[in-house]
């Protein structure tokens, strides 16, 4: 290591390097000797004008906005683009909160590099549902002729190609892409690349690139592996060896304050993040309303009979998880329960008599349910809202049921799922905007679609992962939303749902909070996913009392982390 410092010191002492390019002079002298050929004066003047247009007059600042008269970026978006270009050398994680316009930031950076002549070949990888939107935004807002990939020859033929990562990583596309040298790669929803064991990660890692932008609303925090994996995508080899890195920084070891400082510095070097609160933009309000649903006696009976199974712990329902799933499904629709039960039966090759009986018993209970209390409430609410509404559910069976149910009552709806092909997603979005009152989306449909023209959400059932919930809300509560946003949470009384809602969501005021704070809190805890904790609490608690205590514990931990964070923030401001 010592020789390197000496080397660097050597560079320090050297006076500033000035290089004079002699290629022009050789050609010029040759022409003097040969008496030509000489250029044309008009063209000569044109070349000088071009040069005067393309010089970068200052070390700092962007030239792109001056060339985009139709676009008025917000101050925080300009600031991000400036940061990435000036301080991060075009390798960055853009981690603004949902809805702050990361697309605009990425577009600005791309445009700036293109104007400077540093970027020509570009690959934009985004969720399938956003491919057309990205391509059209780049074209209309930035005059960048981006093309949505459709045929495999397009990778080579076009300079700016937008595609989904799922398409790109498949043959024959993958082989073509791997041969290309990209100047810039933009990846939207990059939080999916936190795990370096996945195919997606491997694919992105193998791309040849000069600059790289990773866009995510979920920032990296103190999770060592995430930091390592994402930074390694941006700057391969920068963090040294993975094992050494993990040993040194892993939370399992005692981390010295000193090392934390290095990690912080590192994260600041590669990540920019704006919060809604910092942007100074007037956001429309969020109104959150919890609607308590009362089960019909038949629905209650179905729910209770699932509870009974837990006490029959004879390996029948060995997985706590499936029990929990059934419970949650019972809060959604009988169709969802039925679907799972049927699958459970199918999975057993030779089901025992007892197993079969239990399932049949449950199916009987399902069959005796005649109405869906939540659906009826939803219908009432939709009529009362008398405007566009998005219903989110976790279950496909519920989605299908709701579509049928609403149709019975003369309400037009369109379905939306993550699994839809890109064209279908665009089509559904348009149908919803122009012709239908309701969009029914499953969880997977929550990401990667922008629906600012709608301002009402019904959470038909609640996801256990608070981040997913924020993603849902983020579909409509983003830049471009002109109305206050109304969120209706359905929770069935005396069920797991009510517990979740009361203890977690209401106590930590999830809905009023915006994603950033929550993120920080959750990652700070470093105790695994909330979902795992919930499965444990509801699955393993012997009594209602035990469950309550465990829930209280979880809530206080979250509150503690929150206070800790506020304390740190205060300390940070005092220090600076």
């Amino acid at each position, binding site marked *: 290591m010592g020789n390197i410092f000496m080397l660097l010191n050597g560079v320090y002492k050297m006076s*500033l390097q000035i290089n*004079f390019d002699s290629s022009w*002079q050789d050609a010029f002298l040759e022409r003097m000797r040969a008496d030509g050929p000489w250029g044309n004066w008009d*063209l000569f003047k044109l070349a000088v004008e071009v*040069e005067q247009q393309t010089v970068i007059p200052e070390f700092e600042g962007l030239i792109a906005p001056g060339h985009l008269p139709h676009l008025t970026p917000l101050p925080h978006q300009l600031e991000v683009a400036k940061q990435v270009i000036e301080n991060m050398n075009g390798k960055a994680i853009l981690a603004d909160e949902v809805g702050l316009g990361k697309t605009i930031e990425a577009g600005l950076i791309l445009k700036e590099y293109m104007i400077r002549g540093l970027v020509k070949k570009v690959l934009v990888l985004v969720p399938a549902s956003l491919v057309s939107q990205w391509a059209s935004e780049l074209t209309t807002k930035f005059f960048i*002729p981006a093309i949505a990939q459709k045929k495999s020859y397009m990778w080579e033929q076009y300079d700016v190609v937008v595609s989904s990562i799922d398409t790109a990583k498949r043959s024959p596309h993958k082989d073509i892409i791997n041969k290309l040298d990209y100047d810039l790669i933009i990846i939207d929803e990059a939080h999916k690349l936190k795990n370096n064991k996945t195919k997606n990660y491997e694919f992105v890692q193998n791309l040849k690139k000069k600059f790289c932008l990773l866009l995510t609303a979920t920032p990296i925090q103190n999770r060592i592996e995430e930091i390592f994996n994402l930074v390694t995508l941006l700057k391969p080899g920068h963090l040294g060896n993975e094992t050494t890195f993990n040993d040194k920084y892993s939370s399992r070891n005692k981390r010295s304050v000193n090392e934390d400082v290095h990690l912080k510095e590192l994260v600041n070097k590669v990540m920019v993040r704006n919060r809604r609160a910092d942007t100074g933009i007037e956001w429309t309000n969020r109104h959150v309303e919890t609607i308590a649903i009362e089960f019909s006696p038949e629905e209650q009976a179905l729910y209770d009979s699932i509870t009974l199974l837990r006490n029959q712990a004879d390996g029948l329902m060995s997985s706590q998880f499936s029990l929990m799933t059934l419970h949650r499904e019972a809060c959604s629709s009988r169709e969802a329960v039925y679907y799972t039960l049927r699958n459970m039966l199918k999975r057993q090759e030779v089901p025992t008599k007892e197993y079969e009986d239990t399932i049949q018993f449950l199916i009987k209970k399902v069959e005796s349910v005649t109405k869906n209390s939540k659906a009826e409430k939803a219908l009432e609410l939709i009529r009362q809202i008398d405007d566009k509404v998005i219903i989110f559910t976790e279950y496909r069976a519920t989605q299908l049921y709701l579509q049928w149910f609403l149709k019975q009552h003369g309400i037009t709806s369109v379905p939306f799922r993550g699994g839809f092909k890109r064209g279908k997603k665009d089509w559904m979005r348009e149908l919803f905007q122009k012709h239908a009152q309701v969009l029914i989306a499953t969880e997977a449909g929550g990401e990667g679609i922008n629906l600012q023209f709608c301002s009402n959400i019904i959470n038909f059932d609640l996801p256990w992962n608070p981040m997913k919930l924020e993603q849902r809300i983020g579909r409509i509560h983003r830049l471009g939303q002109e109305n206050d946003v109304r969120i209706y949470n359905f929770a069935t009384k005396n069920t797991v749902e009510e517990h979740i809602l009361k203890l977690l969501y209401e106590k930590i005021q999830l809905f009023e909070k915006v994603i950033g704070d929550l993120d920080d809190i959750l990652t700070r805890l470093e105790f695994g996913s909330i979902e795992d904790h919930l499965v444990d609490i509801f699955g393993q608690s012997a009594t209602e009392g035990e469950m309550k205590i465990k829930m209280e514990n979880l809530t206080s931990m979250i509150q503690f982390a929150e206070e800790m964070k506020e304390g740190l923030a205060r300390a940070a401001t005092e220090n600076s």
Partner: protein
Amino acid sequence: MQQQKIHKFLERYFESNGCEIIENHPGYLTVQLTIEMDKELMNRPFYWHYLEKTGGVPNPMKLTLITNNQLAPDDIIGETIHFGSPRLHQIFGSAKNLAGHIRLYEEHKPPAGTQAALMPWLCMNLKISYQCDRKKDIFKSIGIQLISGQLIEGFHEKLVNIQLTPKIPDHTFTLSPLIMPVSGISRVEAYLKTELKSEDHSWADAAKERWKKDLDLLNHFYEEDNENENYEVERRALQEQYEPKINISVVNGGVFYLTSEAV
């Protein structure tokens, strides 16, 4: 450069290269390329090679460039040009390439019966790039008179106001340079270097500061692993990124024969 300005620029570029503009619509223009321009822009060497071998009839392409998607009719097929698009960069580069070197004479009519002397000037249009992890450019146009050695800045601005012609006008004659062009170039180089050295280089010091910080961080991650080959790669990458330097490149230039009153 906004879209309208780009449109104007393209018009001038193709016209000064002798290409006919077939259609000139506010949103797009269609150009019939000449053989030379087809070779310059369309990148199809095999076609031209084949044609020359077989002696076929050359068929240079038409090129449609869309400068405003909103104004252009929907059924127009062409390339969308924007500031920053590779095609425009190619055309910029081509303008520089095709007019990199020039020799012109002042259009001067001496009174009847007299002869006028034209002084040789060397003109160099230069781009000075200050480079570290950030970049700044300065455009300079320098002229040096190859007899007296007089050196002036902003030379191009003076030239555009003078009537110039590629052929030596009647009744004028050129004086031979006392300073050879090659020495003229060295004088310009020396002049620029002296000037640049005396400038304030706090930008370079700041870059070194940032460089050192980043290197310290990198060293930290390799503390126990400094034999790693990646380390060397990363260290070089940092040097590439941060090391401050100034690059001077010549945009274009040439000799201009001017009357002594012209400058």
